[in-house]
């Protein structure tokens, strides 16, 4: 990587985009095509694509005669991915784009006052492109910042979910996309939401037996959202394609079912699946048992808000009550020159993320090229598409709530916090002692205090204690880093 020329303001780049998934890629490609601004793009992955277009790490030297990965059919809309990646490659070749892959952002600070005279942002990163032990830190500055950090799977505890072989559906998908590996030969998929389908279809196409897709809700809920659905027929076609794959591989789609337990001693060997009644609770005596060697669970997604919270951006809630970044039609946040696109401002899938990335680019262009900051350019066709796709995202969220009865599956012995090994009995005792949110549960039980900083159990802890998703925690260090790397950080950029 070469050091880019500094902008007149002294920043490394006009714009720093964090996240190279669909939203970040679309934002960068639009900035390159429609402006003359310089761009820095940072992502923790080994290349562009994010989770949606996740690719294997690039191989330095080709190995002739090696079997080709069997990833056909895994990725949706690869043509768009290739078009955007080509645009990024051209931007990098022209010197206007500097990419930093395998770089983990651990903090972002407002650079005021700092090397950027007009104010701006310093993005602090750990370079993990080398071997373990070779990490190094650096800082990237920009006049404007686009947060496109995506989302991660939302998990809920159930007995046995800590057994090896039980994973999130996103984890199963990442194994397939990046590693060409099916996590098991007999797999149960459970939770709620449309993402269960492509994962089950990909596993079936890869040769695994999917014993069932256990969707806690029922497709009939879609009828209540008929207007949003009717305006997004293309999105339905995507779902129909997966359904056809599942039918071809004889994968049973089982609505109103949920996985209530995983069984095994040192790894998962079976699951119990219960019928979900109209009251949203598992029906007593309805449990059936399936022998499996892998399980995928997912209850939707949690937007990755660490940077947004660190910068004090105003949040709002999506239709399901999940905190998301509040943005205007051009994806400006509450803080000048900070923008958010994609799942960080509401989980809506790749098609919406692409549109939002383009809108954010136009917001940046408008604000940085001297236009009257109070004027709002017309969002155009992308603005219309964002409204339409946003309505579809709302419909999905409304049709796929977490059923209230998920707690019925818990026993006092069920692990809630995987890192600190806190059981439901301890969490329940804390709530009975008066804890009314996830923070108080954490103080009393250490739930959410471990390695993952509550990213996995925080949602469950909030539902259990407050009955709703909580405000995201401020995490001083957004990504773990070796102390040696922390010690070599430049004092002038030190956020601590």
């Amino acid at each position, binding site marked *: 990587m070469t050091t880019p020329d500094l902008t007149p303001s002294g920043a490394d780049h006009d714009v720093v985009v964090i996240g190279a998934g669909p939203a970040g890629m679309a934002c960068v490609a639009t900035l390159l095509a429609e402006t003359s601004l310089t761009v820095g793009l940072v992502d923790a992955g080994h290349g562009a694509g994010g989770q949606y277009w996740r690719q294997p790490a690039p191989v330095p030297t080709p190995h002739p005669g090696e079997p080709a990965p069997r990833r056909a059919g895994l990725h949706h809309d690869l043509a768009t991915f290739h078009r955007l990646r080509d645009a990024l490659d051209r931007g990098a070749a022209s010197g206007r784009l500097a990419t930093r892959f395998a770089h983990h952002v651990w903090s972002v600070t407002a650079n005021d006052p700092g090397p950027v005279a007009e104010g701006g942002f310093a993005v602090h990163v750990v370079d993990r492109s080398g071997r373990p032990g070779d990490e190094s830190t650096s800082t990237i500055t920009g006049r404007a910042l686009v947060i496109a950090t995506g989302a991660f799977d939302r998990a809920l505890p159930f007995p046995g979910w800590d057994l090896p*072989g039980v994973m999130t559906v996103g984890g199963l998908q990442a*194994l397939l996309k990046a590693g060409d590996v099916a996590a098991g030969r007999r797999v149960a998929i459970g939770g709620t939401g449309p993402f269960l389908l492509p994962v089950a279809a990909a596993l079936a196409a890869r040769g695994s037996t999917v014993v069932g897709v256990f969707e806690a809700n029922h497709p009939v809920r879609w009828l209540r959202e008929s207007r949003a659905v009717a305006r997004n027929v293309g999105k339905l076609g995507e779902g129909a394609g997966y359904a056809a794959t599942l039918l071809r591989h004889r994968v049973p789609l089982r609505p109103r079912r949920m996985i209530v337990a995983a069984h095994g001693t040192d790894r998962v060997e079976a699951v119990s699946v219960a019928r979900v009644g109209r009251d949203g609770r598992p029906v007593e005596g309805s449990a059936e048992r399936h022998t499996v060697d892998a399980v995928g669970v997912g209850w939707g997604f949690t937007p990755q808000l660490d940077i947004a919270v660190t910068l004090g951006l105003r949040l709002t809630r999506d239709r399901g009550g999940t905190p998301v970044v509040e943005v205007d039609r051009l994806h400006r946040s509450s803080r000048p020159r900070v923008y958010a696109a994609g799942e960080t401002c509401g989980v809506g899938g790749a098609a919406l993320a692409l549109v939002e990335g383009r809108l954010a680019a136009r917001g940046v262009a408008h604000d940085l090229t001297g236009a009257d900051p109070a004027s709002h350019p017309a969002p155009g066709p992308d603005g219309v598409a964002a409204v339409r796709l946003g309505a579809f995202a709302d419909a999905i969220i409304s049709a796929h709530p977490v059923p209230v009865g998920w707690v019925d599956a818990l026993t006092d012995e069920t692990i809630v916090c995987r890192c600190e090994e806190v059981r439901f009995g301890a969490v329940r005792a804390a709530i009975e002692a008066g804890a009314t949110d996830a923070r108080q549960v954490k103080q009393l039980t250490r739930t959410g205090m471990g390695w993952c900083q509550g990213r996995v159990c925080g949602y469950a802890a909030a539902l259990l204690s407050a009955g709703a998703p909580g405000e995201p925690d401020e995490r001083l260090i957004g990504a773990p880093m070796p102390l040696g790397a922390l010690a070599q950080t430049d004092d002038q950029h030190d956020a601590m």
Partner: protein
Amino acid sequence: MSEFDTSFDFDGRRVPFRPGQTLGAALVAAGTTAWRTTRLEGRPRGLFCGIGVCFDCLLTVDGHANQRACLVVARDGMTALTQEGTGHDDT
């Protein structure tokens, strides 16, 4: 015999990998689902989130503890070890 000629060492065992795979993907492909024991109860853990969020898949790589198997790209000749507890001697 494996279809790949690249491999790393896991607890004294040779694990083949396709170039570009992570340690976690190669271990799962080789039928290994756990490579860590928890600090308090010594329970086995392996991949859970698969994308670097959950820290369940920690192992020790070339002497460096607490590496996420789902993120570390396998390299020929690497040495990976099951991690017990914190991965340091103070457990």
